[in-house]
């Protein structure tokens, strides 16, 4: 099963995604939660805590850093740069914009 949660700002996407992920995990499914927001907060809703959420290295940054050997697969990326949230949900953050620079909307 692959689900993407979308909607207007403030409508409850992150909360919905987090509850879905933990519910599937509790039912015994292996669950990956992907935070694709450039202002990633899914960790907080999953119950990972503020500090751990802020400390997550984004997969994109990990790819750009170029200091480590390339991960061999998507599974490897999630394994190396993800975090484990309550109920065993694995969380990975795709990209975050850290600092101001010009660009598209």
């Amino acid at each position, binding site marked *: 099963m692959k689900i993407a949660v979308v909607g*207007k*700002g*403030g*409508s*409850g*996407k*992150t909360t919905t995604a987090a509850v879905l992920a933990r519910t599937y995990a509790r039912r015994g499914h292996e669950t990956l939660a992907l935070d694709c*927001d*450039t*202002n990633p*907060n899914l960790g*907080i*809703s999953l119950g990972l805590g*503020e500090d751990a*959420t*802020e400390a997550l290295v984004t997969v994109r940054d990990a790819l750009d850093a170029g200091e480590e050997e390339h991960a061999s697969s998507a599974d490897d990326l999630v394994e190396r740069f993800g975090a484990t949230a309550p109920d065993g949900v694995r969380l990975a953050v795709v990209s*975050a*914009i*850290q*600092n*101001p*620079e*010009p*660009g*598209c*909307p």
Partner: protein
Amino acid sequence: MRVAFVGKGGAGKSSLAGTFARVLAAAGEQVLVLDSDPMPGLALSLGVPSVDTGLPDDAVEEYQEGGRRRYRLRSGLTGQGAVEQYAVAGPDGVRFLQLGKARGPRWDNSRPHWAFQRVLDDLPGDDWSIVGDLPGGTRQPFMTWGRYARTYLVVVEPTPASLLSGRRLARLAASRGTPQVLAVANKMRQPDDPDRVAAGTGLDVLGAVPFDPAVAEADRQGRALLDAEPAAPAVAAVRSLVEALRSREAPS
């Protein structure tokens, strides 16, 4: 006054920005309201009936530069002219300009988007106040879509996710050319909530807006808060924000 509202999705940017602009306009100022969110929202909070009024495709013309296709305002059209011609008139005399809404993957939004950018590069002068509403999150604020602002107002709720977003947005303060970044503590329920916002974001708090069911009710009705409930506590708080910012933003 030139202000841009930023913050996490759902923090209350549009409700506050719409009310803020109306309060300024009702005080007799010429106010241009800028909505660069590709999802509808600010029109309703402002009390403008049309939710999708982006700039027309022919506001810009194509030209080549270094072998690349680029867009500029069409010959003879200035930013001020685009505002006069295309900004929608709203209640209390506000003028409202939108980025234009996302029309689906098969629709090319690039001309309205470039037109909006070019107007941002050539906004009317200091006899206008400008109130902008940016989409939730850090993407647009970090990509200079609020570059007209003399003040960024980061709208923050007393929740960890909103505080974390506020902390990220506080990095705007460290970037060049941004004179002022302040927090607005929104949906306050406890006396120490504004202190939590100050501590959690590291920003000065311009003012606090109480949790007010009238805001949610106005949203539910699709009406401007100022029209639905002019005596609401949140409206009074926004009036205080306007006054507080008047004394903090350098006179233009």
